[in-house]
């Protein structure tokens, strides 16, 4: 996370150019940058080289919690006030599987969303942005102190940027 918001913003038309730029940046030891893409792109992702999102853990834990609470809820409620229906055991596990299953899904999905929100928030990246990055351009914003900006600008241009500007 960076508190510094100033930097250099470059926009690319071509994906190979953008990924080349990312690789160059990383080679130069510049890691504090944000890449904007209109669609998720494997090439860019590989260039950036994040590890797999931890959201999947949330899903797993949510699902397990859902399953456990599904059985806990049904069984506890059944025995809290035992009422016999149809001669069936008070705590009938088989039908409760359905509830547990649904809660697994519900909690799993809920936790996934929470994880998504949480991690997106934790890894939020401040910086310059342009509307066309959700349309057809790829943007790379490099946060850097004023003194390095010229160097970065040149580097991004060299990689084939359509436009580069310095944001303060």
């Amino acid at each position, binding site marked *: 996370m960076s508190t510094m918001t100033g930097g250099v913003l470059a926009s690319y038309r071509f994906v190979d150019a953008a990924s080349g730029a990312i690789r160059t940046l990383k080679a130069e030891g510049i890691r504090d940058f944000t890449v904007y893409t209109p669609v998720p792109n494997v090439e860019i992702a590989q260039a950036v080289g994040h590890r797999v999102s931890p959201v999947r853990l949330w899903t797993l834990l949510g699902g397990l919690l859902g399953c456990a609470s599904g059985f806990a809820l049904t069984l506890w409620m059944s025995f809290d*006030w035992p*009422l*016999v229906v*149809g*001669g069936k055991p008070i705590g009938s596990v088989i039908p409760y599987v359905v509830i547990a299953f649904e809660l697994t899904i519900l909690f799993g999905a809920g936790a996934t969303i929470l994880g998504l929100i949480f991690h997106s928030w934790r890894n939020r990246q401040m910086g310059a942005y342009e509307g066309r990055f959700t349309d057809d351009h790829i943007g790379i914003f490099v946060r850097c102190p004023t003194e390095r900006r010229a160097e970065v600008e040149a580097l991004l241009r060299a990689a084939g940027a359509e436009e580069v500007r310095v944001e303060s």
Partner: protein
Amino acid sequence: MAENSNGMNRRKFLTVLGVTGGGAAALSGCSSDSVEKLIPYLVPPENQVPGVATWYASTCRECPAGCGLHVRVREGRAVKVEGNPDHPVNAGRLCARGQASLQGLYNPDRVRQPLSRTADGKFEPIAWEDAIAQVAERLGGSPSDGVRFLTGHEAGSFDRLVDEWLAAFGSRGRVAFEPLGYEALRHANRTVFGIDGLARHDFAAADYVLSFGADFLDTWLSPVEHARGFGARHGYRDGHMGRYVHVEPRLSMTAMSADEWVAPRPGSEGLLALSVAHVIVRDGLASTPADVHRVRPLLDRHVPETVAAETGVPADTVARLAREFTAGPSVALAGGMGIQHAAAHVTAAAVNLLNYVAGNVGRTVRFEGTPTGRPAPYSRLVELTSDMKGGAVRALFMHGANPVHGTPPGLGFRDAMQAVPFKVSFARFMDETAQACDLVLPDHDPLEQWNDFETRPGVHALQQPVMQPVFDTRATGDVLLQVTARVGGPASARLTVTSFKDYLQRSWAALQARVGDRRPFATFWTEALQRGGVWREPSTQRVTLAASAGSLEGSSTWRLPEGRLALIAYPSSALYDGRGANRPWLQELPDPVTKTTWTTWVEIHPETGAELGIAEGDVVEIASDMATIRAQAYLYPGLRRDTVAVPMGQGHTAFGRYAEGRGANVLHLLDAEPTAFGGVATYTGVTLRATGEHAPLPKTEGKPRQMGRGIAQMVTLEELARGEGHGEHGAHAAPVPERIEEILDHWQEGQDEATKYGAYEGEHPRWGMAVDLSRCTGCSACVTACYAENNIATVGPESVRRGREMSWLRIERYFEGGENGEPFEARVLPMLCQQCGSAPCETVCPVFAAYHTPDGLNGQIYNRCVGTRYCSNNCPYKVRYFNWFDYQEPADPTFAWPEPLHWLLNPDVTVRSKGVMEKCTFCVQRIRDKQNQAKLEDRDRLADGEVLTACQQTCPSDAIVFGDLNDPNSRVSALARETRGYHALGELNTRPAVTYLKKVRNLVEG
């Protein structure tokens, strides 16, 4: 329930009661304040503890049978009637009409105060004193025979008072007209035995019943008493049962219990009876009395072979009937209205002879002396009518009779009334006759008044007021005495008592002397009130043949006119002659045979229907020489093809909201001319015509046949004797291997064990029921009892058409055979919640509104019910009923208890609101009540038979037994173990608590 009702709940019930109990007889009805008020009595009424029921003995006056009643009174209101167990006639049982007597008491269409007709023909209220003054003024002056008094059948003090009162005015113009007057039977008894009266038939002593059209289980004479005896003797027990053969062109409800149905040509039953008698005498099958020689010539003319052509019954059948009839104690019966054609007296006389030659008279057929108060034959009414037309009648008083509706219009009674200058009715309801009167002085309901009734010789029954009168009515006896007091002079000198109660007590003082009781009168009186009356064993008259016996013209049968169908107009088992038509319980009670409600139908044989192009529900025009009426068709295989049948009782043009404008009055088709025996002939020739109109019949039956599903099962006596009681069932049941059975049992034990938590721990009873189908006659008394006990709403014909009737207990009626030459048969089965051990309904309820109680009931918690109706879908028996509308909401058009009908609501049972499911719970309120009582007496267990469900309590033939299945010594568990026992749809593994015992038919061997 009833959260948002204004006034229809238990609590309000208590509230307003306090006021009336305190003496201010204002029925504030539904319009009570929004603030809840508790109103105590001003002074404590006798014997009344709030919340605790008091029981009073009285007598049922719904029909002339006169059964004894116990009336349950809560907070000063009668809320249920049951049979008086001490009463010799009904021994605690009651029929549907008796159960519905409460709806007479609380009928919203009762005449609420005296009414006087104004110049413009409308009625307006009048003060009692003015009304009495008016009557006194009209009667004052010289004594004359121009005063006439028409009553219904009365037998007791009121009967005598009316005669004395008339005499005080110098008149002997009393006519007691009972529409179902059994003129043919009386005529036959006079002709054959010289006895002016009716016999008593001992069904409990008769192994063989041969009925010639007598519907002795629906309306004939004393149906509850008959059902009791018949159930005891004809019901299967330990390898024995009676046999019952019914002879009538139509299979009536009574005949559905028959082991064999013989359908002779309509009008020829008498010949059949005589030919049976012929065979008996010819073959010496019985030790016939010596004086039979007097009728030998008559009998000799009726050789089975020659009679067969007339009756359509083969000679060997006749011979067999004769052999069976004389094989043991037997009784033959002749129909009342069921075969009342122009030759009905011949039939009745023939049956008398048959009984006589078989030696039954004096044994199963007993004459026990003449009771007080005999109804006059219809012909007397005809005379009265002509007197009226001739201007001989100055003043006409009417009580308990509705001749305008209850006689063929050809009689012209209504027109004749125009010729009478002063007509006074004591009717409780504004019926057709009261409408044509000048003064209507409403009588108390039988449950509000003092009276007595001599049901039959030796049975002196008392009626006492069980509660304050609902409306501003007066007992007619009192009014008569007030009139004489007002007139003064010689009239009042002859009647010195001031109230009818005094008059009654005087005659009871005389009775005390007659029965030889030497205690103080107060003791005698109190004891009689508590018991419901005084009974003595009557002496049996010795009977011999009268001189006229042989004069019977045997060939005088009624002949069906060429090209016509024979119409049978029979009394409705629910509405009787029509007097029950203003009781919603009876209107909605499905007819035991056709399962139709709220209307008039015409029963047509399916083949006849096909010939005439008539399908069920088609509106049919029925034309006789007299008139034409319209009724909806019901195709019934239990009829001869040349016969159609229409029930009486509907077609009221007055008589209140429940009766008016429903169906048609079949009496319109009948000839008003009295028959040779002085009655109305209820057979006539008619033609049918389909009108092209069609509407679904308001009937509760879905499919008339059980598709081999073994719901109502039957076994023959022969099969039982061979040990084949397990019977017809098993369309697909393959034998289960023993090992599998063991595994299943083991699994079941595990399941049961896993339910023992909380309230389910420990020992509990398991409530169960056994229904003996060999006793059940389908009379439907239980259905109405259930309505009464459980606050079940009536829904009206439109809802019945949609199958929305609420009857928790219904009598299913299935037809068997009748096709391809198989004998036709009808079976009945009371279907109620089976309180399944593994109830399919319970599991599916999302909110536990349906669940299993520790004592084995399918609890239904109305206030928890959300109304998904899933339980009903999943109930294989379809015994769950949904509140489609708000039947308890006075503001809704579907309100089922218009004021003051809601007073009959049982305060111990929740009145259900719209959107909830309801059902039978074995009268759980009765179980809990007894359990509470037992606990207060430090008893943990209830005794067997301590709890009686409402249906069991009223069942005239004792077909229903209720108790604890976990107690191996209870009556119900003994019955449940019988070989005849089966569970309806048992293969679904619902483990019902209701065990049905198969119907047994005593078929002829070979």
